[in-house]
């Protein structure tokens, strides 16, 4: 009986302490929405570190609202730049339609500035430095913009953790990301990153007016070298026009021996 008053103080302390902890946690939570969002994106992005270079062939299937299809086939070579403040280099070479066979796009990506880009036109053997300030227009008539499907650099966005929720067979962290690039075509993107292998499963793109523009679904993830995950089917649906584009990837090749020289402007004329 006597013990009760004696316990009062510790109990009060405990309540106070737990309140403090709760308050502290609440503060930590508001602080860490961004940190948590960044951490989720970073874990996903960095799971990819160290791949050095890769080569992949893909088919791009364009479908209009009436369901009429046309197809392009292309190959993408990528050279990883390990420094997260420097963008990767990529070379896209078209194989079909036949009239653009051998046409190539070389990009030296930058994080916050416009990329360096060159277009190679094999019929004239002409290499043109092109303006890359606008990366949000349709890429070769597809629903993908150039900024959608090239290497998504971690530092191109700021992040905000929204929630976690089931997504298909996985549980996903839902992270909002805001492009830091001033000429981006989007005000924000919302991405679903699974908690199992930390890969992006779905992205919603919001246009400059803040309306939902496109939804990207990524699937058929396959692992290479026991490490690197790559999606082999990407479907982009334009919610405003109902047009769709699928990217269907063949198997990736890593350790191809590609180096800086293959991503040199002067090497473009080797293509055709």
């Amino acid at each position, binding site marked *: 009986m006597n013990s009760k008053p004696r316990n009062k103080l510790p109990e009060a302390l405990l309540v106070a302490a737990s309140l403090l902890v709760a308050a502290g946690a609440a503060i930590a939570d508001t602080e860490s929405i961004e940190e948590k969002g960044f951490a989720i994106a970073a874990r996903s992005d960095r799971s990819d570190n160290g791949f050095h270079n890769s*080569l992949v*062939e893909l088919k791009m299937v*364009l479908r*209009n609202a009436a369901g009429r299809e*046309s*197809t392009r086939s292309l190959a993408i070579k990528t050279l990883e730049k390990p420094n997260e403040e420097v963008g990767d280099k990529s070379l896209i070479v078209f194989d*079909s*339609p*036949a*009239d*653009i*066979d051998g046409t190539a796009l070389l990009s030296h990506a930058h994080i916050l500035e*416009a990329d*360096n880009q060159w277009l190679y036109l094999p019929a*004239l*053997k*002409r*290499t*043109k*430095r*092109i*303006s890359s*300030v*606008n990366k*949000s*227009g*349709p890429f*070769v*008539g597809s629903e993908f913009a150039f900024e959608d499907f090239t290497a998504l650099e971690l530092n191109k966005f700021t992040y905000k953790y929204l929630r976690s929720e089931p997504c298909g067979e996985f549980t996903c962290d839902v992270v909002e990301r805001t492009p830091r690039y001033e000429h981006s*075509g989007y005000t924000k993107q919302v991405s679903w990153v699974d908690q199992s292998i930390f890969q992006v499963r779905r992205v919603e793109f919001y246009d400059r007016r803040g309306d939902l523009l496109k939804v990207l679904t990524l699937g058929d993830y396959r692992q290479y*070298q026991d490490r690197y995950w790559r999606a082999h089917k990407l479907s982009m649906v334009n919610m405003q026009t109902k047009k769709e584009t699928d990217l269907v990837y*063949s*198997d990736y*090749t*890593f*350790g*191809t*021996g*590609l*180096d800086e*020289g*293959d991503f*040199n*402007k*002067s*090497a473009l004329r*080797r293509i*055709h």
Partner: protein
Amino acid sequence: MCADGSELLNSPARTKTPLMHEAMKHPITTVARYLIGTSLGVTCVMPVLADSEMNFSGFLAGEARLFTQTPQFSGQLDRNEYSLALQPELRYEFNDQRVTLVPFYREDSLDEERSHFDLREFNWRKAGDDWDLLVGLGRVFWGVTESRHLVDVINQTDLVENIDQEDKLGQPMVNLALLQDWGTVGLFVLPGFRERTFPGVRGRLRTPLPVDTDNPVYESSAEDSHVDAAVRYSHVIDDWDVGIYYFYGTGREPSFIGNGDGTRLLPVYSIINQVGTDIQWTHEAWLWKFEGIVREGQGETFGALVAGFEYTFYQIAETALDLGILAEYLHDGRDETAPPVLFDDDIFLGARLAFNDTADTAVLGGIIFDPSTTEKFFSLEAERRLTDHITTELEIRVFSDEPADRLLSSFSRDDYIQLTLAYYF
């Protein structure tokens, strides 16, 4: 031995070591890659050339040129012009090497000089890590501007194809390119000269007297066997793309003299020394361009330049359309003993519309005019893909009427509308 699938998929694969290393770590993946390689239709039939690949492509194009006026000169036929062009392209790759064969033939209904054959490319190329070597008939393009390709000096113009001078004849060459961190050095030895093609007596878009391409006059006693040479340095520094070169040899542009009976012009090819530079500054939606040359050997030493910009408005009015505005100033300081040039002090204004649609629809229109005279030249080119294999192209060219002492007067009655339908394979 037959290489594994990824090697085949992967041509030109440069280094085998990392792949072999991976293969030893993952034998199952290697087998899988082999299966994938073959299932994609890359077959390994020649054990000696495991890393090889044959590629066959090209086009067949039908063209109709409708002239809106009767011809100006005697001998020219008052008819529309129809032609058929075939250009198969064969590429055979093995190891880091490639053999390319691109023959071209056009059969023309109007002009026997426009019915012609050329080997656009017939060469062997070997690519190293920081160099590549090309031996044979090849094509090289230098330059950045749109209204005139002033610095593009290696290949001879196939003028009967189009007056825009973008079609070129295959040039015999040994070309070594050294790709270094501090820039690219291109070394060219050019054994053998190709004569410019000119329309025949019946053809349109020609000089008042037709050019006799059978009797060219050369300054060099070696005639068309003079060995020309060029060296070019080019580099990219952030927003700047810069090239500079020196060329010595038979100038690709001829001047003309009358033949004995005054019925033909004979092309005269002189030995020239030329330095040239092409510079582009790319900043946001701006492309600022400059091309300049100084040439010695055709009359007084002279300079010429093309300078201007291209600015693009992206996704205009919230559509997918991009609109580019082009403006260039053309100046050429040559005297009358040098080869004639149409645009010596002119302004080019143009617009490029890219629809960014599935059909890759694009339109480029422009006008070149001389502010000090009435000379004007209008051009419109539009193209569109009809199916995965068929494209169509529309070209309209209009020339202002000029008094006979002006060079452009030769084309005054040659306004035309050209429609091309091409099948790519």
